[in-house]
């Protein structure tokens, strides 16, 4: 559905994205993870034509996206509102969204406004941070755009509101599937919504995998150093730690049956790496694994 090839973006001398290659398939929910300043927002802005790229292609249904009305009208990016429109009333902003999004569902928007208990007569700047975010969420959901992107959709939302959003998102996704990309920091909470996860680190995509595969391909090995070293030679090591005389090593990759048996026989404990930690390791500068560089 969406194909990105050799995308590069710099702000002046500051390189933000290098050689990004990505395929986004139709009607899947993707998570976009990365540290602060890793370039997530830049990537999303590039996809939705908000900013200009230095080089590379972005194609929707095999048509270049930039300045292409047919492509751009199918993409909805939900992000922080620009300061300039904060003087407007919420209902006016929603009315404008209705005019511009060709698949806009007015009834659904009314339903969402009620669900979130939003006072639409207020000016945008008079709303709390959470409610400002909710306006964006409502627009994203009601737009029914074939590609809907949420950039940090949980800013300022308490847990109850966040879960309400996840529920509504899944509810609509069930009835009317669409391609969704969510960029977030709250990995543990949102990981279950994703079918695939994309990690952006140091200007590049360092991982793109199914969430379930992520869990199955990451392990902590802890035990005696010399024993562990025997089986980690060809593995992608993402973390090292010492705990007394015990060595703890985090790896990303598969363990063969023999390696598992070897570990059990040599008192090497194998455990899973929690997603939050896994994410931190995969985006730490210390251990650079190979970059994800191609179509899968």
């Amino acid at each position, binding site marked *: 559905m969406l194909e990105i090839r050799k995308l590069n973006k710099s702000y002046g001398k500051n390189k933000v994205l290098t050689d990004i290659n990505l395929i986004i398939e139709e009607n899947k929910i993707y998570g976009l993870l990365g540290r602060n300043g890793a370039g997530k927002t830049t990537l999303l*802005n590039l996809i*939705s*034509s*908000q*900013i*200009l790229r230095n080089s590379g292609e972005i194609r929707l249904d095999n048509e270049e996206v930039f*300045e*292409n*009305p*047919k492509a*751009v*009208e*199918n*993409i*909805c*990016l939900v*992000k*922080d509102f*620009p*300061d*300039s*429109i904060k003087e407007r009333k919420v209902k006016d*902003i929603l*009315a*404008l*969204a209705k*005019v*511009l*999004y*060709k698949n806009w569902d007015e009834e659904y928007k009314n339903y969402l406004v009620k669900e979130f208990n939003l006072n639409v007569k207020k000016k945008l700047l008079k709303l709390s941070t959470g409610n400002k975010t909710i306006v964006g969420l409502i627009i994203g959901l009601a737009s029914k*755009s074939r590609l809907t992107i949420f950039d940090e959709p949980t800013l300022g939302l308490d847990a109850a509101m966040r879960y309400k959003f996840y529920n509504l998102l899944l509810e609509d996704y069930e009835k009317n599937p669409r391609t969704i990309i969510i960029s977030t920091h709250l990995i543990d909470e949102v990981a279950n919504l994703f079918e695939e996860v994309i990690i952006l680190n140091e200007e590049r995509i360092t991982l793109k995998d199914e969430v379930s595969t992520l869990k199955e391909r990451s392990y902590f090995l802890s035990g005696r150093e010399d024993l562990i070293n025997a089986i980690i030679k060809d593995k992608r090591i993402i973390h090292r730690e010492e705990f007394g005389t015990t060595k703890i090593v985090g790896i990303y990759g598969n363990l063969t049956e023999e390696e598992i048996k070897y570990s059990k026989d040599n008192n090497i404990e194998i455990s899973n790496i929690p997603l939050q930690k896994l994410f931190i390791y995969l985006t730490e500068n210390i251990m650079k694994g190979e970059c994800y560089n191609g179509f899968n």
Partner: protein
Amino acid sequence: MDSTKRVLKFQTYGMKKSVGVFWSVLLTINIFTYILIGYFNSNIRIGIFDSRTNTFSIVAGNIMPIFIFLIVYGIVMYHEDFALALNFGVTRKDFYKSVIFNNLLVILVFSVIQSTLQVIDKNIMGLLGYKPMVEFSIFNISTDNIWFIMLTLALLFLTIASITNLLGILQYRFGYKLWIGLGVVFTVGQIMGNFTIKTIIALSEILLWLQGKLHYPTVLIIGFAIIIICYILGYFQIKKANIKK
């Protein structure tokens, strides 16, 4: 095309309100001034007073507010509507087309209203016992056709609008740096011996000379030239515009 229609609708959404408010206020001031002068015999000269010919027009003073309106309108267009439209799935090209269309609509409305006012003004000033100002270098209210006046005013307003549109885009792209840049240019010009004033005088003299030779068509040509150049420059600038945070 469907997407173009949607952008046009988006444009006209807020336009009615701002145009309506502007003219309500302006007309109120005009009427208020008429009452002041006519009923209360005040000596206030709100409007344009030409001491050489001793003629007076209240409504001609509207030109300044209109000018300011167009500047603000141009800047707000990009400061607010551009960012919003692009965020909601509009291309820069479609947006720009809608801006030009919107500009045309606005200046047509303005020129119809203002030219009508000028004609009314001529009659009211006469009734109030003043000599009405009728000679404006590019048209004459007494002798010229109302349609001619409307079109001429439309041309004038469109020229201003094309310039303010370009200014709006440059302001959005370069922010305060634009105004600093312009300020620097003029200051440097001032330092280099009253460059600014000399240029304006020189340009006006050229215009007047040309006008003397060819009268109406010159203004038309120059007007169209400015309009076309400004809108084209604007398009090239907007194609490269990034949406700011």
